[in-house]
């Protein structure tokens, strides 16, 4: 029987949860790297026991960890993320120019086909790549040429937080940056262009339709429909049917279209999930009810999923990298909260259970299906 393994990054360490295919009883191991902020842990699709973890600290900086045995043992690999050449400056909060400075790795995206190849999204926003299992990292500097000089940090920092790779079209890569927007490369990461047409940010930007500057919180897509993208923006849930060339809003009947994560059902390309948050000023669920919203129509028509989730006095947030789906049947959905709970649904979202609670604030959740 297949097993599920959930990789949880928190403010104070990483945790690994495992269960059989029923996904009812979970075993928790951790904390790994206790006391460190673990922004992201992700396994290689080509070798599920190859894991990469971003370990970071305000005191001691960035460490990059790798495991070759599914998280039983770890080895620190290179933590040198040097921008290519002189990175110059980007726009600062006060409108002045500010030098590009590496702060931390937000997101790790292993190649679909090679366990030694991984992309890393960092703050200040840039994309790095390793081809040797993390022993060295090289920047793909063409991304910062896509108007990087006018990118500006959001409140959480100027982070590259989403990387979408396509196993069928390896030359096509999408990334998303807060607060710069979405960018696409059609040549394997050498050159890039902003793909933000249709995004509107009237409360954040002087030009609501600006080419760059939008606070994209997350983008997602189904592996079988690589041209269809879904986005949770600062405000607005958006959809593109043309590889990001144009976007239209699909927020529909959501109680709030502010939020952070968005994900797509593993077997139903038009079924998507978001977790609405009250507002940009109040990062907790509307009406103090933790509700995942599911659309089976690719947006616009949404239903609240509440069974097993707290429906009163709930004031947690769900961060952008803290939702994942597994490929079992029925599809499993997982998300972690800033209150330290990880909730899972083994029936596509109909019912939920906390599979661990009282962890430190959850920064990221990933799931693997193991043979």
């Amino acid at each position: 029987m297949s097993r599920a393994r959930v990789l949880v990054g928190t403010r104070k360490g990483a945790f690994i949860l495992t269960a059989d295919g029923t996904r009812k009883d979970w075993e928790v191991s951790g904390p790994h790297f206790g006391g460190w902020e673990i922004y992201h842990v992700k396994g290689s699709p080509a070798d599920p026991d190859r894991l990469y973890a971003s370990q970071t600290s305000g005191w001691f900086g960035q460490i990059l960890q790798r495991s070759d045995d599914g998280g039983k043992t770890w080895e620190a690999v290179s933590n040198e993320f040097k921008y290519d050449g002189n990175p110059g400056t980007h726009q600062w909060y006060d409108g002045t120019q500010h030098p590009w400075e590496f702060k931390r790795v937000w997101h790790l995206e292993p190649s679909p086909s090679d366990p030694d190849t991984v992309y890393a999204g960092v703050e200040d926003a840039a994309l790095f790549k390793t081809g040797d299992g993390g022993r060295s990292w090289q920047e793909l500097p063409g991304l910062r040429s896509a108007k990087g000089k006018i990118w500006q940090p959001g409140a959480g920092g100027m982070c590259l937080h989403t990387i979408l790779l396509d196993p069928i079209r390896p030359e096509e890569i999408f990334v998303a940056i807060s607060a710069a927007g979405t960018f696409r490369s059609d040549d394997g990461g050498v050159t890039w262009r902003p793909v933000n047409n249709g995004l509107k940010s009237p409360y954040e930007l002087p030009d609501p339709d600006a080419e760059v500057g939008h606070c994209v919180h997350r983008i997602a897509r189904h592996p079988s429909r690589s041209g269809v993208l879904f986005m949770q923006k600062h405000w607005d849930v958006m959809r593109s049917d043309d590889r990001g060339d144009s976007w239209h809003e699909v927020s529909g009947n959501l109680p709030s279209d502010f939020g952070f994560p968005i994900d797509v059902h593993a077997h139903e390309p038009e079924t998507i999930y978001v977790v609405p948050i009250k507002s940009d000023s109040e990062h907790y669920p509307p009406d103090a009810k933790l509700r995942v919203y599911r659309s089976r129509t690719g947006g616009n028509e949404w239903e609240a999923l509440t069974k097993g989730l707290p429906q009163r006095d709930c004031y947690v947030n769900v961060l952008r990298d803290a939702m994942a789906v597994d490929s079992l049947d029925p599809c499993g959905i997982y998300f972690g909260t800033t209150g330290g709970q990880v909730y899972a649904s083994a029936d596509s979202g109909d019912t939920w259970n906390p599979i661990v609670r009282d962890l430190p604030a959850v920064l990221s959740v990933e799931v693997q299906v193991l043979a």
Partner: protein
Amino acid sequence: MITMIRVVLPFHLRNLARVYDEVELEINSAQNGPVTLGALLDAIELRFPVLRGTIRDPDTLKRRPFVRFYACKEDLSHEPPETPLPPEIVTGAEPFFIMGAMSGG
């Protein structure tokens, strides 16, 4: 001249370096000159490559803002790398402390 210096690392760096007590570092001071703060930090990173970047920036070699260096009840955190270490540190009579600065979280 070869000297043996005792270094106490903070909890998180001990874990990274996989050491569980203070460490002893052999430093060969050039032409019998003084053993400096910078030479000690070089020696730590040479012995424990995993600590490269955790104590000071790997490019500029500037101390990370929330790391402190203490020796013989003195704060050497703001001293330049060419600062000679106190004799008690060089002889091994006293350990050199690397600490995480006090801050919440």
